[in-house]
């Protein structure tokens, strides 16, 4: 598996550089165009987007229900979308409750809702996380310092196809008086993946 994704001098990275070079050489794109497109996408891609969605969902029950039912339709309410790449990707938001907890992984590679969470952390792409979290999520969460109540059921979501997943964490206790920006500031990237509580 990992042999295909090895070093920058071989495999997909080298192939990509060669393709980019050919596209420029044939005048189909100009030099730096890909970098600018990627830069523009990444400038908007941040876990702050996911955090805003969560804060709104905590405050507005109607929005929470729309987000859970059809996330792509709800995103524009906050000026967000799953577009920006080659095609609009389907987003599924999965909700943590008092008795159920969700964790996201892509066991086959590293599928991840980039537009809402920014570039994924290195550990998310590691073989250790990808192979172990589907098999023994409780132990993996413990290694993140997250001791989940043994009575809470765990659902692991393997984003192995076209959909992308994001966790809607539980709203922390003692936050009743907080507004949307203050609540959003509490939401962490790991909370949106499901390897930490918020």
């Amino acid at each position, binding site marked *: 598996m990992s042999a295909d994704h090895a070093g920058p001098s071989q495999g997909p990275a080298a192939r990509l550089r060669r393709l980019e070079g050919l596209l420029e050489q044939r005048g189909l794109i100009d030099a730096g165009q890909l970098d600018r497109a990627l830069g523009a996408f990444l400038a908007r891609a941040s876990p702050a987007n996911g955090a805003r969605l969560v804060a709104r969902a905590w405050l507005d029950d109607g929005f929470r229900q729309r987000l859970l039912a059809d996330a792509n339709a709800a995103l524009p309410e906050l000026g967000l979308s799953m577009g920006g790449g080659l095609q609009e990707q*389907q987003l*599924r938001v999965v909700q943590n409750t008092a008795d159920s907890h969700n964790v996201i992984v892509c*066991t*086959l590679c590293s599928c991840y809702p980039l537009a809402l969470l920014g570039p994924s952390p290195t550990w998310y792409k590691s073989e250790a996380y990808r192979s172990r979290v*589907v*098999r*023994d*999520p*409780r132990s993996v969460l413990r290694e993140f310092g997250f001791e989940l109540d043994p009575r809470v*059921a*765990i*659902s*692991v*979501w*393997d*984003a*192995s*196809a*076209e*959909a992308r997943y994001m966790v809607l964490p539980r709203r922390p206790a003692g936050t009743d008086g907080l507004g949307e920006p203050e609540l959003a500031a509490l939401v962490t990237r790991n909370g949106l993946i499901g390897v930490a509580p918020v």
Partner: protein
Amino acid sequence: MAELFRVGDRVRATRVDPPHHTRLPRYARGAVGTVTGLLGRHPLPDRSARGLAAEPEPVYAVSFAAGDLFGEGDHTVTIDLWESYLRPAAAESRAKGRSSE
């Protein structure tokens, strides 16, 4: 072409170990799970990744009990799977029942 499966159907992932790209994770092969979601239609990557014509086909969210995947564990794992990776588990067990009679 209509979807072969509906939410609630029991399905078995195929055991095929193809000599090319696939998006059926090895740990799910041969396991029985339940369809819990319909995720639209997309070209089968086993074909599209090889540059072959691939008509969009249904993709399903299929939930498996950890015990059925790994022989242990009390969690569930939901995997998004193309229709070509799935067989009806009920029909399969009926067929088995007949053949053992």
